[in-house]
């Protein structure tokens, strides 16, 4: 049984800074324990809480397995990586930072494709001309599959892309993409355009609780103390 609550916090970059700022607004200060470059920490003045500094995607795995009780991570990562997300975690509070839209984008030159449904007609001709379905490059395999099949689009193939996804249509390794965008500038620079109804998810960082972590009396008490400071009803 765990007696201490594990709070998973992004370990680097803007996401870590903004998480620290969010906590600071409630007068809470994150502090590293031991070596300055270490990955363990605590919150000053709150007992019973271990802070784990890990990557945003690892936080999802921690929450899904129950290794972390509470965490800060993006909704996109939650929805992509946990199949039955609403059974495994609770999204407690959107935090107003880490904003990114997960979108379907096609080459701007596809003047005959503006809505997601237009992909179907285009794919019929495409298969006739090229003998294969459209390739959709993405790291959001599950979000893309769920969204496209929900819109009745079936003749496509997902190719996993772990970086520089926006460049894949111009390179010819994919025909369209599902990716995150904040301002759309990177998409535009790569000759891509978001479909009119192509926003899959408007994501941002969330304070998330695991439903499967060990909620012992001690960890529940630590959670309540944290939530009281943050002004959240758990």
């Amino acid at each position, binding site marked *: 049984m765990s007696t201490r609550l594990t709070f998973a916090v992004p370990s680097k970059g803007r996401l870590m800074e903004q998480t620290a700022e969010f906590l600071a607004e409630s007068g809470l200060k994150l502090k590293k324990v031991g070596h300055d470059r270490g990955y363990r920490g605590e919150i000053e003045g709150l007992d019973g809480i271990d802070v784990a500094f890990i990557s945003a995607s690892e936080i999802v795995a921690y929450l899904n397995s129950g290794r972390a009780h509470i965490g800060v991570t993006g909704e996109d990562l939650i929805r992509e990586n946990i199949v039955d997300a609403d059974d495994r975690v609770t999204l407690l509070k959107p935090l107003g930072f880490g904003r990114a839209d997960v979108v379907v984008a096609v080459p701007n030159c596809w003047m005959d494709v503006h809505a997601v449904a237009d992909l*179907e007609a285009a794919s019929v001709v495409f298969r006739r001309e090229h003998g294969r379905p459209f390739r959709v490059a993405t790291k959001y395999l599950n979000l893309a599959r769920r969204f496209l099949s929900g819109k009745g689009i079936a003749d496509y193939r997902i190719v996993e892309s772990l970086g520089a996804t926006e460049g894949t249509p111009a390179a010819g390794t994919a025909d369209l993409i599902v990716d995150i965008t904040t301002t759309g500038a990177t998409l535009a620079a790569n000759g891509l355009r978001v479909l009119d109804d192509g926003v899959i998810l408007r994501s941002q960082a969330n304070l998330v609780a695991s439903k499967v972590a060990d909620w012992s009396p001690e960890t529940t008490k630590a959670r309540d103390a944290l939530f009281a400071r943050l002004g959240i009803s758990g």
Partner: protein
Amino acid sequence: MGAVQPVNFEALEAQARTLLSVFIAAGYEAVAPETIQPAGVFLNVVGEALRGRTYVFTDLNGEELCLRPDLTVPTCRLYLQRYPAADREAFYSYNGPAFRFQPTGADASHPREFRQAGIEAFGDKDAGEADARTLVLILRAVQQAGLSAWKLRVGDIGLFDAILGVADMPDRWRRRLRHQFWRPEAFRAELKRLSTEPARSMAGVPQALIDALRPDDPVQAEALVAEHLQASGVELIGVRSAAEIAEGLLAIAADAKAPPLKPETAALIDTYIRTRAPAAEAAAALRRLTGKSSNGLAAAIDAYERRCGLLADSGVDMSGVDFSAEFGRSVGYYTGFVFEVLADALGPSSPVAGGGRYDGLLKAVGAPRDVPAVGGAVHTERLLTVVRGGRR
């Protein structure tokens, strides 16, 4: 997640030997296609339903591979490795594992690994004969393995093509409906849309360009699209060509002006799709439905009837066989005759054997042209369960 029942390996092996000996005696050479297949070719030809259930992985060289979800495509690839010109008749049989991801968890009736024993015939000269021979051989094999009672269900994708061929509509709609045939829900939605409101949204489509395009001149259309892109500073990127974009724009323009599908045309397609009849009466029912019609459809109905006759001549009791027009829609590559062997103990969703004609598949995996092909496979674990009198 249910527990997977232990399979008696020796009993399964003995059964497989029986099945294979029947196939080999009929002249089907035993082959062992590769278990691990290149993912690209496989995933391009199987329907999305099978694609989402295929185990795909990347090896240490970065090559994308998959565990075969069935043995038909691997056997096609083996045939093409032997005869790249695809100009020979060939008969193959096999027995081996296939792998499918089970989204709701694997159990005894939905295993992630199962063994298929089957046959494939390539390059036949007489489709009806080859279809009948395939089904007869599969039935002989399962009978030899101890199956004493079964129910047969047949269908014919060729009939659907023929119906679509005579239905009064623009070719582009025909292609779209043909494309959606594999996805019943999307098909219904598309048929409804074409019969009510075929015009698609013009939002974002450059009107001046649409007005300038001449439907009868694809070369001019392609040039105009290229000009328009250049003038608006949009780069043509990706694999999709200006000609394809022009074709898409022309289709949007034509759809905007097209009258909806006539009610009788939509009704013909819809009634056909819903047709279920005893196999021996289906031809007559279809002639009543379609009336006096063009050669293409009459020929397809004749071919169906001839095949039924050939099956009866080979000793298949046609009196209990069901015809279903819908049937065959779940696998993306069938083009003609389709069949399923059902056992009471397992019900209609777990056929003991099945197969059909797939004349377009070899070209899709690399043959220089379409090659006639028909095959069938036995789900060996299910067969063993039924023969032993168990329920699942």
